[in-house]
């Protein structure tokens, strides 16, 4: 029986070449996008799951809350990990800390190979017990036991040693440590919340600190991971944390500190904390993409349904006859499902070809390394088969049920042959397609408007024309005053300063004790350690008091700058009133010397809050916190400035290569996810509209065919081309208008929800709704008019004779 189903399916497909083409094209694009989105999403969802113990690994998160100001830290103080293990031996199987001196880059040297490495970390010897990494050389059990040992990836081995044997080689770290390579591992899978190339032993850090690691419970630079025992309940452990904080953290801070557990596998999509090792993606982006993928299939499936039911008149006789000779309805339904599944199968084959063709571009676009071979895994093959079955059944459902319901008597009497014209169901489906398309157009407009808004929003400082040079632990940092004087002599350079984080993207928190707070307690406030001319370099305004003044030698140790929000947070009357207030820091008694305007020290996902700008005085502190040089230059002279800075750099710093970036680019990275999503949604929206338009074209063609005789008669009676186009188009235009009315409120609600993710958001522009409707209308009109135009061009003599 199947043989004859397939045979007649094939012949029908060939007979209806045009509609089959539309169906397969639409479906294959829909399926291809669905597969790509599926690959992307499974890749995103697979982060960190390759570790055998992934389900039991948690990261300890550290929250400092001082009346709403403070930090949500992804890292914890040094003692947390092993103290926890001692305190809760029944629940914790293993712990590991990962540490990088809070340095954005580390200089690594082997002979003439010198690189500033971003992916250099120190970790406890338990690292490879907690995380699974395949050793190519060396022993995972002992590789991190010794002082000054380091495990590197194959990539790093090639980079430094080429073809030479890496094991036993010495890498020089920050001109301070000689690290012996004790292991080489496979490169860290991309699907990791942090990618490292070097893991050196924590014993080396202990040795550097003179035999013991920092014992402070304040400084929290260690990403701390726990492996829970198999039957341990993470909630139970978390419930014990308040007692843990009480027992070990300093009295003055206890009430402001809380600890939480974060599942390892949640980090990549659900974690947006301070001091993340790498920026993470957001689960809402995944939901949005999944929705787009489903819409894509839905719209392609609707094309299928619409065209199949519309062209059903041509098949009603076949169904009637089959029923007369004894076919049950179920058999007819099965036949149609067979056909739609077969067609979907063709579309799937084509879709796989499309995926293969565009996967490289898709990878470049999304920064992924997805290989087509994943589709060959049994789970994927099963998923693809399921996809064919589901989309085949979904697209075949309406035609199958509708067509099989024909009563043989009616069919054979010819009652149904023209019945396909009205089709309320089809209209509903077209409206659905257009509603989705219009909603997506609006969503894309709003998303781009938000991205534009974030890029151009007033951050409270000027991010343009500032070059950032990492100088942590370099000779430039060591001789910064001389270096500053020297570069400021260049006519293209307006001013220079230093900071301990890239202003506008990240910051630390530091301990302060403002006037009116108890003497035994430190408060942690968002702060940057700055140098002279910070205010000038970043174009911040002083609204009360004054900036740091180089002529005033006590400024660094006695003076502090706060922003207006901090004035309000302190409950001080006004900026002027806060001048001279005590604002004690670890350096001693400092006083507020100036108040700045408010600014966004991190991304616009978060609101600008109270902030402190502070200078350090001791050489050690200055060296530690001088991480980036920031240079404001005269616009248009970037090249000269860069080559000038590079030449000065090379005179001061003999070992390290010169690196730079533009502040604007650094801040754009904060919105990478949104931009990626925006670009992807533009492409997918375009494709969705294309598929919907394709379906509309098919439907309009069918209607034009159906009405050949009517058009002929109208022409004989004197109708012009215009009036015929109007007749054919009018029906679709009405549908698009209905779709618009449905799409508007839905897309408004959706985008309003999406925008809630941002502390700073653009207002939804009502014009976008008009534009989207106009775009949909224009497309519908273009397609139906074109088709109607051709229909109107036929000679009525032919069409009437034919009839």
């Amino acid at each position, binding site marked *: 029986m199947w043989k004859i189903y397939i045979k007649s399916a094939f012949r029908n497909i060939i007979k209806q070449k045009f509609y089959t083409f539309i169906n397969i094209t639409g479906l294959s694009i829909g399926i291809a996008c669905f597969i790509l989105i599926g690959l992307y999403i499974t890749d995103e969802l697979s982060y960190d799951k390759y570790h055998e113990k992934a389900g039991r690994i948690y990261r300890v998160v550290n929250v400092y809350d001082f009346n709403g100001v403070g930090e949500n830290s992804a890292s914890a103080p040094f003692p947390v990990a092993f103290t926890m293990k001692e305190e809760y031996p029944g629940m914790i199987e293993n712990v590991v800390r990962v540490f990088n001196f809070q340095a954005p880059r580390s200089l690594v040297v082997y002979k003439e190979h010198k690189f500033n490495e971003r992916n250099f970390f120190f970790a406890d010897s338990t690292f490879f017990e907690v995380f699974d990494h395949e050793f190519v050389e060396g022993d995972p059990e002992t590789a991190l036991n010794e002082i000054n040992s380091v495990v590197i990836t194959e990539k790093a081995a090639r980079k430094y040693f080429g073809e030479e044997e890496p094991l036993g080689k010495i890498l020089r770290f920050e001109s301070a440590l000689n690290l012996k390579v004790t292991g080489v591992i496979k490169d860290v899978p991309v699907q990791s919340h942090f990618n490292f190339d070097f893991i050196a032993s924590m014993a080396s850090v202990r040795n550097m600190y003179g035999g013991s690691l920092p014992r402070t419970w304040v400084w929290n630079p260690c990403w701390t991971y726990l492996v829970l025992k198999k039957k341990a309940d993470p909630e139970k452990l978390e419930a014990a944390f308040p007692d843990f904080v009480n027992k070990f953290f300093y009295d003055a801070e206890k009430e402001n500190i809380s600890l939480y557990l974060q599942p390892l596998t949640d980090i990549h999509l659900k974690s947006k904390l301070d001091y993340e090792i790498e920026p993470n993606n957001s689960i809402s982006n995944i939901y949005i993409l999944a929705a787009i993928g489903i819409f894509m299939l839905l719209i392609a499936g609707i094309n299928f349904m619409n065209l199949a039911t519309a062209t059903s008149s041509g098949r009603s006789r076949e169904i009637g006859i089959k029923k007369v000779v004894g*076919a049950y309805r179920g058999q007819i339904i099965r036949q149609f499902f067979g056909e739609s599944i077969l067609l979907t199968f063709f579309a799937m084959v084509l879709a796989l070809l499309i995926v293969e063709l565009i996967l490289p571009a898709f990878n470049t676009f999304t920064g992924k390394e997805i290989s087509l071979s994943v589709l060959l895994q049994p789970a994927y093959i099963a998923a693809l088969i399921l996809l064919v079955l589901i989309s085949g059944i979904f697209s075949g459902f309406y035609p199958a049920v509708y067509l099989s319901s024909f009563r043989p008597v009616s069919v*054979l*009497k010819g009652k149904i042959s023209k019945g396909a014209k009205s089709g309320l169901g089809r209209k509903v489906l077209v409206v659905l397609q257009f509603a989705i398309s219009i909603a997506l157009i609006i969503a894309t407009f709003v998303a781009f408007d938000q991205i534009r808004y974030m890029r151009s929003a007033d951050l409270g400082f000027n991010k343009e024309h500032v070059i950032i040079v990492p100088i942590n632990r370099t000779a430039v940092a060591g001789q910064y005053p001389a270096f500053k004087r020297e570069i400021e002599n260049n006519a293209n350079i307006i001013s220079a300063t230093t900071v301990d984080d890239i202003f506008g993207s990240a910051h630390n928190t530091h301990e302060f004790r403002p006037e009116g707070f108890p003497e035994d307690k430190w408060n942690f406030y968002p702060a940057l350690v700055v140098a002279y001319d910070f205010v000038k370099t970043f174009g911040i305004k002083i609204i009360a008091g004054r900036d740091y003044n180089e002529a005033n030698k006590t400024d660094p140790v006695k003076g502090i700058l706060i922003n207006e929000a901090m004035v309000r947070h302190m409950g001080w009357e006004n900026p002027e009133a806060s001048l001279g207030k005590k604002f004690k820091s670890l350096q001693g008694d400092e006083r507020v010397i100036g108040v700045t305007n408010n600014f966004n020290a991190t991304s616009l996902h978060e609101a600008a809050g109270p902030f402190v700008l502070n200078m350090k005085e001791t050489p050690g502190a200055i060296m530690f916190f001088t991480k980036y040089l920031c240079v404001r230059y005269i616009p248009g002279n970037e090249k000269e400035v860069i080559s000038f800075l590079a030449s000065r750099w090379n005179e001061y710093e003999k070992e390290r290569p010169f690196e730079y970036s533009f502040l604007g680019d650094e801040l754009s990275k904060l919105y990478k996810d949104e931009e990626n999503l925006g670009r992807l949604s533009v492409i997918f929206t375009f494709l969705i509209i294309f598929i919907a338009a394709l379906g509309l074209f098919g439907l309009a063609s069918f209607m034009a065919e159906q009405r050949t005789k009517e058009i002929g008669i109208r022409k004989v009676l004197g109708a012009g081309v215009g009036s015929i186009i109007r007749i054919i188009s009018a029906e679709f235009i009405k549908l698009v208008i209905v779709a618009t009315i449905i799409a508007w409120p839905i897309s408004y609600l959706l985008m309003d929800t999406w925008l809630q993710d941002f502390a700073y958001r653009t207002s939804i522009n009502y014009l976008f709704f008009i534009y989207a409707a106009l775009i949909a209308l224009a497309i519908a009109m273009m397609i139906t008019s074109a088709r109607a135009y051709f229909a109107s061009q036929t000679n009525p003599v032919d069409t009437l004779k034919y009839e």
Partner: protein
Amino acid sequence: MLRTEELSKVFRTDEVETTALNKVSFEVQKGEFVAIMGPSGCGKSTLLNILGLLDNPTSGNYYFLNNEVSGHSEKQRAKLRKQNIGFVFQNFNLIDELNVFENVELPLIYLGFNASDRKERVQEVLEQVKIAHRAKHFPLQLSGGQQQRVAVARALVAKPHLILADEPTGNLDSSHGEEIMGLLDNLNQNGTTIVMVTHSVRDAEYAQRIVRLFDGEVINENIKEAVAV
């Protein structure tokens, strides 16, 4: 074979109620060849559809093979239909996408015959109606007479007890018409019951009995002589 008692069929639309059949009672014996005649719109085809279990009457009884079937569901009717009745239509009603062999094979597929039995049986009937040499052709490649022969072959293939023919020669020229009527006559000689709706006096001559319908009612039921009226 079949018997109707006061069979009525009423078609209703929003505004009009049309009585297509009005209390029709008649009987067809096994092995008979009955022609139903009457002017257009008198209810011939409606009657044939009900006899063929394609439709249910509005009221009255219909006994098919001694079973009352007027209230049967579509599924029950389909079952009876495929086992017992062959249809021949005026416009042939072949499926254009299937070739001659496949068209004829269709009823056997729905009856669940296996492939080799089907092949044998189809071959046999194609030879019987003298169209075996065209087995691989598609309907549109055949003349009207040839198409109707295929349709007859399809009606025969499941060896039905009853063949219902709805103006089987209506779309054919006279020589092809004779050919088809000859075929039906031959079948009848071999024991198949035939009920045929026709306008053609000449075709009706093949029948043993003529039932005349007018405005949905049987007005005359006669053997042969009626033709001459």
